[in-house]
Structure formats: structure tokens, C-alpha cells
């Protein structure tokens, strides 16, 4: 049994605080195929999907991007604490001004010609990963009056099985925008919410150059059963 059966960890599909869910959340209840996972195998990605250079987002341009340089480290584990090895982890984020290098983002903040905001790694033998990047900025969005997203980094993980696929967002500690962010607060359990916040870990940084942050990610078991919403 997954802990996700016992605790409301994931946000509901229909969450009125995030307006566009009203158009996209299914109206019919999701169908349970218990007690079996839908599939126990999952895609396995080779090294060619994540070149070593893709772990450093600050060397993409001709010179260094603007912003506060940071190192993000962490481990990917399953519910039993076992490392999830050789697993593709994709990361994307806006620049220090709060603008994504993406055609859909029309926010009136400058693009940084030296920052694309995209990184990929395969996790190591202990499930570990390390990115070099800059701290993303906050940005406004049109969800409601005075809506601003807190600084966050998007993460997409495949795990080692179909049930382990997860897409999430990582937030920063003590951000005053967290209490008013509907996305952060769509996770119903306050303790679960805190597991989306990274921790300052100075010694993972680079002295006189970059701050260090740690963010460990727990995937559910490869053979865990489907869960409620």
C-alpha cells in the first residue's frame, strides 16, 4: 500500500483556486484498477537523453546569466528509502527576472540571452542529482487579482516504473508568496506541502560564488496500487 492511499498528498484535479482546472478536470470519477498498477514496466532512458553539460544551466550562453547563482542537489528515493537510479530528471524554470524562455510567456520582463532555463540529468547510483542554475524570480499571472507565483523550479521525473512518473514544483524556504499561491496550496495536507520546499544547504554551494539548496524527492513504490484523489 502506498502512503498516498492514507494521506491526501496530491492536489485534487478540480481546484477552484486555480481557475483553469474548471475547464480540464474530468467530471466523471477516475476508475480504479485496484489492486494492480496499470503497468509495472516504465521507460528507461539512456545517457544520450541527458548530456553532462545539461546539468549546468549557467553555461548555456556566451556568458553567465544574470541572477543569484545556486547549486541544487538532492536524492531521488522510493517510499522504502531505496535510491532511484539512472532515472531521467528534467527541470525547467524562469530566469532571475521571472520570465520563461518560452513563446507562451508574454510577461513584460526581460529575457536573458544567456539563460534558457532547461536542464536534464540521469540520477546516480545513490539516486543523487546536482544542477547548477540561478534562482528563478517571482512573476505575475492572471489567475486572480494580484496573483504572483512564488519562485519555483519545475521538475519532471520518470522513476523506474510507470507508476513512479511525477511532475512537481519546488519552492524556496520562507517565501512570503507561498501562503497566497493557489498552486502550492492545492496540496491539501500542510506537511505534504512542506515537502515541496527545498532547504538551504550552504556547504553544497560554492564558497563566494553560489548558494546551495537541497531537495530530496520521494517517488511511490514501483508496484504500488493506484490511489484515490
Amino acid at each position, binding site marked *: 500500500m502506498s502512503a498516498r492511499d492514507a494521506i491526501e498528498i496530491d492536489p485534487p*484535479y478540480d481546484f477552484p483556486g486555480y481557475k483553469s482546472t474548471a475547464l480540464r478536470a474530468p467530471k466523471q470519477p477516475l476508475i480504479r484498477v485496484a489492486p494492480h498498477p496499470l503497468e509495472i514496466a516504465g521507460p528507461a532512458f539512456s545517457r544520450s537523453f541527458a548530456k553532462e553539460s545539461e546539468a549546468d544551466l549557467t553555461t548555456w550562453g556566451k556568458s553567465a546569466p544574470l541572477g543569484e547563482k545556486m547549486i541544487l542537489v538532492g536524492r531521488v528515493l522510493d517510499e522504502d528509502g531505496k535510491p532511484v537510479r539512472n532515472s531521467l530528471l528534467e527541470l525547467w524554470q524562469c530566469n532571475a527576472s521571472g520570465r520563461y524562455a518560452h513563446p507562451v510567456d508574454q510577461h513584460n520582463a526581460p529575457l536573458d540571452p544567456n539563460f534558457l532555463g532547461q536542464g536534464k540529468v540521469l540520477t546516480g547510483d545513490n539516486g543523487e542529482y546536482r544542477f547548477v542554475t540561478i534562482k528563478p524570480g517571482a512573476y505575475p499571472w492572471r489567475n486572480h487579482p494580484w496573483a504572483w507565483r512564488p519562485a519555483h523550479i519545475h521538475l519532471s521525473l520518470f522513476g523506474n516504473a510507470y507508476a513512479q*512518473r511525477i511532475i512537481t514544483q519546488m519552492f524556496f524556504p520562507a517565501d512570503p508568496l507561498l501562503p497566497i499561491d493557489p498552486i502550492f496550496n492545492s*496540496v491539501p495536507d500542510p506537511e505534504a506541502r512542506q515537502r515541496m520546499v527545498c532547504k538551504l544547504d550552504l556547504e553544497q554551494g560554492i564558497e563566494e560564488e553560489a548558494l546551495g539548496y537541497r531537495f530530496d524527492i520521494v517517488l511511490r513504490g514501483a508496484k504500488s496500487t493506484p490511489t484515490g484523489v
Partner: protein
Amino acid sequence: MGKFVPTPSCTVGPFFPAHYFGPNDNDLTVTSNAAGASSKRAQGTKIYIAGTIYEADRVPRWNSIVEFWQADASGHFAHPNDPESSKADPDFMGWGRRASEDDGYYDFITVKPGGYKDPLTGLVRAPHINVSIMGSGLMRRLVTTFFFPDEPANAGDPVFNAIPDAKVRERIILKPAKFPRAPADALCYRLDIVLQGEDETPFFLD
């Protein structure tokens, strides 16, 4: 219950990098950007699957991310959880991804998957494709499964039959179709994905 509590899911949002879609990521018959940079083609019957993704009120939904995950033509996965993984087609990875276009259109080129006996349950799975949909306004991925028409094994498939209503089951059976964009040598199927409303696609707990 495990020792550690899983990290919550959060919406993919609208800004998933366009660069993460490789030129052949929606062609599962090509492994050139996957393991081994092989120029060989996957074994099996080439098929083309396309359709439109709709949100409420039949409005086409653009910028949705669709992922395919399936067995190879003989029903094997190149994955340690498949006890017969050594028989898996080395030129087939089984995974693909693309974003829906401005008019909600999505398409994949792949091979028809084989059925197999699920190693965990011993139940026979009909040929099928696991489909995940992600996007802004979707808090987590939505998962469904595509099945093939006129497939006797559908009658015993545990996922297909988890849907109690036969009319609803019809909504995840691929329909023979023709598309101008399909490769000439592919069998073509259509399946629209309706996130919400009339003829809503059945989605599974994940």
C-alpha cells in the same frame, strides 16, 4: 506503507520547454534519439494514431503534453520488471511524447503492441497503449489506455473491464481512420481525448 512519504504532484503549467520535444519523439519506430542512436526501425506493424484533445465544451486544447508508453510488437518491454525483457526489440523504446498543436491535434507513429501476461498478476493484457496527458490546469497527469478494435483479448483485459459501462469502454477503442499527414505504409487510427464533458474519456486512478 513505506518509510518515506511521496512528494506531492504539481501542475506541469504552460511553460514545459519546447526543446524537450525531440524531432522524432512522437515516432516510436525510430530510436535515433534514444539508446544507441540506432538507424534501424522497430519490428512490427507500423501504425499512426492521431486525434484532438478537447477541454470543456469541446474546445480544442493546445499545449497539452501527451506521452505514449507501450510494449513492443511481441508484447515485451526493455525493462527489468518484464521477466522476458531479453526478448524485447532492441530498436524499440516504447516511449514517445509530443505537445498538442494549436487546434488540439496530436499524433504518434508507432508499432502495434503485442499482448502479454502481466508478470505481477498473471492476467493476460490485450494489446494496448498507456497514454498520459499533462498540461496547465491539470493538477496531475491524467492516465488512460488505448485499446484496438476487433481484439478478442479485450474481453479479458483487467484495465479495459475495470470500466463498467460498455458505451464508455468504446471511447478508448481506436477507430480506423485516414489522415493526410500519416505515413503511406501505416495503418491509421483516430482517438480524440475529451478531458471533460459529453463523451468524456475514461481516466484511471494512477
